[in-house]
Structure formats: structure tokens, C-alpha cells
């Protein structure tokens, strides 16, 4: 197992290199002088020159990339052009908020999506199936930020039950996590339904039934166990979608996370922070998918990574 994890970690290196190349050329694609861009519009010519020298921008491009990589490996992402704080510090301060939001949302989405998918699969083409599948379709087609705004109108403006934004208490996370969950629950419901329908038609399900097992046992212990792999895969993939959705949800609810940070940085043209945030988003996504791969072995003992 450990060997597999190491092998899988090594296989992410080309992707990481790809991401680093993308980030490296991101600044070079911009019109104008990268040093000026990094220093910000208000910087003095001395500051710009200093940054140019610090970053080695006066050296050949291949050496520049080498320097960039070595700084990246040390998580030295430079300083924010807006606040002058180290980028990694800015990211560190907000990462827990985004992780909290994402975990709350994915938990909610699984708690609703997996049972909904199972119900649909057990009673296909009945009213309950149509209800859940149309809800899933609505979820996929609905702009997440609009849903968030409408929840604010209902629960904050009209009912005064929950705060419209910000952080502080458990009440603050209710609306953002529901909004974000609605974004991914649809995919989880659809995938659960599809893989459960498949599992329920297999011979082992028939065998389990003919042994006289109770229907609940057949569904949960026999069918669901076997249907879990595609479901877990989709949950992992949806985590990426969730990170994208977090950018919008955090804006709706003024939630101080990474999504808000990247939008503010884009608006302020604060490129070091944009670079850093994109890198962290990529890393988180890769790690989550790695985690999903490792989980396969726990879910399905037939999978062995030798």
C-alpha cells in the first residue's frame, strides 16, 4: 500500500511540473514588464529594479525557471503586491475557511445525494425517482451564486433566521454550505442511481435475495458495497467542482476563504497572490484525487496495488 502511495505521489510530478510551467508563463504572457506587474502600479523604479534583480528577471529564461522552481519547492511564493505580506501567509490564513466550507458541503451533499440515488435506483421510473432525478437536473442547471442569493433573501431578509454573510458562529456556515452542496449533490445523486441500478441487476444481488435476506440488507450490504467505487470517484471529482463553486459561494456570503482571495487579487491585479492561490487549488485537487485512489483499496478488497 505504502509503495502504491509513493508511486502515485511520484506520478503527480509531471502534472506539478506542468502547473509550475503554466504559472511561470502566466506572468510572461502579460503585456509589459513582469517586475513592474509584481511590484504594482505605485512602485518606484528602484523597487521595480530590486524586484527584477531579486527574482532574477535579468537572467536567461531557463535559469529564471530554475529559480522559480526552487522557490516554489520552498513554498516561497513571493509577496502580495497589495499588502506586502508573504503570499503563503495570506493563503494560510484563508485555507482553513475554504476547507471547512468544502468539507461541510461535500458531507451535506453525500448525506442527501447517496440516499436519494439509492431510492431512485430501487424504485426506478416511479414518482420518487422522477422527483429526485428532476431535482438533480435542476441542481446542475442552477447558477450556484443565484441559489445563494435566493437563500439569503428567504432566510436572512424575510425570515431573519440566519446571517446573510460573514463568519463567527455555526449559523454563518449553514447557508454557504447548503448553497455549495446543492451544486454537487446532483452529480452524486445521478452517479449513485446509475451504479446502484447496475449493481441491483447483477447475479450476486439475485443470489443474496434468493438466500432470503431482507431487502434492506441486500441493498446496503450487497448492492451499495459494490456500487461505491464509482460514487467515491465522482465525489473526488466533484471536489474540484466544489473548489470552483467555492469562489462564487464565498463571494455571495463574504466568506473569507481562498476563493474570495483569488477574486480580490484578480480585481487588484495582484499576480503573486493569483499564482499562489492557483497553485494551492491545483495541489488540493491532486491530493484529494490521490486520497480517492487510496480509498478504493479500503472499499474494495479486490483492488490491490502491487
Amino acid at each position, binding site marked *: 500500500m505504502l509503495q502504491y502511495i509513493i508511486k502515485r505521489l511520484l506520478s503527480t510530478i509531471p502534472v506539478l511540473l506542468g502547473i509550475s510551467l503554466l504559472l511561470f508563463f502566466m506572468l510572461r*504572457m502579460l503585456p509589459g514588464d513582469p517586475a513592474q506587474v509584481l511590484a504594482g502600479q505605485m512602485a518606484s523604479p528602484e523597487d521595480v529594479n530590486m524586484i527584477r534583480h531579486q527574482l532574477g528577471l535579468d537572467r536567461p529564461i531557463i535559469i529564471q525557471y530554475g529559480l522559480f522552481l526552487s522557490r516554489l519547492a520552498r513554498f516561497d511564493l513571493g509577496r502580495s503586491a497589495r499588502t506586502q505580506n508573504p503570499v503563503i501567509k495570506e493563503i494560510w490564513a484563508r485555507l482553513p475557511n475554504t476547507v471547512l466550507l468544502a468539507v461541510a458541503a461535500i458531507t451535506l451533499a453525500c448525506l442527501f445525494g447517496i440516499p436519494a440515488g439509492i431510492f431512485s435506483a430501487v424504485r426506478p421510473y416511479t414518482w420518487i425517482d422522477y422527483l429526485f432525478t428532476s431535482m438533480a*437536473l435542476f441542481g*446542475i*442547471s442552477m447558477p450556484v*451564486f443565484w441559489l445563494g442569493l435566493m437563500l439569503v433573501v428567504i432566510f436572512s431578509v424575510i425570515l431573519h433566521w440566519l446571517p446573510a454573510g460573514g463568519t463567527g458562529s455555526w449559523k454563518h456556515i449553514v447557508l454557504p454550505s447548503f448553497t455549495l452542496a446543492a451544486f454537487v449533490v446532483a452529480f452524486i445523486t445521478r452517479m449513485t442511481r446509475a451504479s446502484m441500478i447496475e449493481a441491483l441487476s447483477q447475479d450476486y444481488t439475485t443470489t443474496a435475495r434468493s438466500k432470503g435476506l431482507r431487502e434492506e440488507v441486500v441493498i446496503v450490504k450487497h448492492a451499495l458495497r459494490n456500487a461505491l467505487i464509482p460514487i467515491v470517484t465522482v465525489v473526488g471529482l466533484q471536489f*474540484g467542482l466544489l473548489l470552483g463553486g467555492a469562489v*462564487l459561494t464565498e463571494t455571495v456570503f463574504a466568506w473569507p476563504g481562498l476563493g474570495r482571495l483569488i*477574486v480580490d487579487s484578480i480585481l487588484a491585479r495582484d499576480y503573486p497572490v493569483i499564482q499562489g492561490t492557483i497553485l494551492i487549488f*491545483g495541489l488540493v*485537487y491532486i491530493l484529494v484525487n490521490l486520497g480517492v485512489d487510496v480509498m478504493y483499496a479500503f472499499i474494495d478488497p479486490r483492488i490491490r496495488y502491487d
Partner: protein
Amino acid sequence: MELPQKQHSLAWRKFKRNRTGLFGSVLILIYLMTALLAPVIFPRNPSSLNLMKSLERPSIENPLGTDELGRSILGRIIYGSRVSLLIAIGVVAVGLLVGVPLGLISGYYGGKVDFGIQRVTDTMLAFPGFLLALALVAVLGVGLKNTIISVGISMVPIYIRLVRGCTLLVREQTYVEAARAVGTRDAMILLRHILPNVLVPIVIQTSLGMGTAILFAAGLGFLGIGVQPPTPEWGAMLGSGRAYLFNAPHVATFPGIAIFFAVLGFNLSGDGLRDVLDPRFKI
């Protein structure tokens, strides 16, 4: 798969029976007509300001109310359909023009070319689509053209993967082998023998992709880094409506409904097409 004439009419008959797919197509048609006939349906200028009438609730004169600058929300939604459809078409055009040839080449030639293209695709897929679009906007800047390019490029890896996968299957077919045996040029084989046979998944993906394009572009508009005012764009309308949720919630309500039904239309049609043309992928 390319359908002969008889199968065409069969597919059409099946699609007609697929009620949700048909409903989706009707939705798209309504949006298309709205976009084309915008000046007829709403003869006033959707961007003309009237601060005396700002944030008015729905009335006979302004059926969906007015926004903070006194502009008719109905008018801006009607003209916004032009912008959103333009974005949807532009985005899938970028995705198709870049993704399909690369996918064909990657799948057909294999080897080093395939390896190279796939590593680039891996890197792009390491970012969730919306974040990739966001990163590209950060480099290219805001505005209609850059929104189309950014969202379009973020869809390229999806087309590459899809087309490559199908090409790998089709490449092994006897008719491709036969074409190669009689000395047909590679470009000809790709265009005449492989492309027509991978068209169905491309068409399905294009319908679904248009829905996603509208959602992504509206998301960028909402964040203030997409299409810029005064161009009427649904996402940006929601973004500015956010400030008035407490005293004028209608400003943020109606543009969202417009986005929802547009995306629903493309998703339903995409699903319907998939059911009719390619039962293997039915979920």
C-alpha cells in the same frame, strides 16, 4: 456514428418522443427567438438610465421592475440573451476548433505526439474548469472577447479527451485499415473516415458544453471579471443586484431565472440527444 438517411428519420422520431429533450429544444428555441427579435420585443434602449425610477418593483410599465440605475430588468434580460448565446456559441467554437483536431491527432497517431498532448491535457484537467477559466481571465483581462477565449480554452481538454477516446476505438476498424491500405493520406482518413464516426459524442458534448459555458460566463460576470457594464449580461446583473438584496430582491431574482432556464434547455437537449443517438451512455 454517421447516420444514413433512414436512421436520421428514426432518430428524429425517437427524439420527438423524448419529452424532456423536446422541452429543452423548445427552451433553446425561445431564447434564440428572443435574441434575434430583441429590438422588436423590447423597442427601448436597454441601457438607457433613469435615476428617478431606480429599484422600482415590478409594474405594468416595467414588468420585472428596474435596477439601481432605473433600467428595465426585462429589457436587459432580453438583450442579455444575445450576449449569453453569443458566449455559448463562441465558447464551444473555441473548444471544438482547438480540441477536436488535437484529440483526433492524439488518438490517431499515438506515440510521442499523443504523450505530449495528453500531458498538457492532464495539467489543464488538474484545475477544475471554472478555476482554469478564472486563471486565464487573470492573464487575459476582462471583457466579452476574453470571457469567450478563457471559458473556451477551459473546455478544450474535455474535447481532447472525448475525441481521443473515440478515435482510439474507430482507428482499429476495418474500414480505416482498408483506407490506409489503399494509400489514402492521413489527413483524408481523419477527415473522411474518423471524424464522421466520432461526431455523435461531439454533438452531445457541445449541447451540454453550451449550458456550462453560460454558467461559467455568468459566474465570471457575477464576480465582476466577465463581460463589463453597460453591456447587459445576466451574471453581472446578479452581481450588481447583490447589493440590493434587502430592499429590492427582485433585481437579483429574475436574471437568475433566465440563466437557469437557458442552462436547463441545453442540458435537457444534450441528455435527450444522448438517449436517442447513443444509448450506451444513458445514465
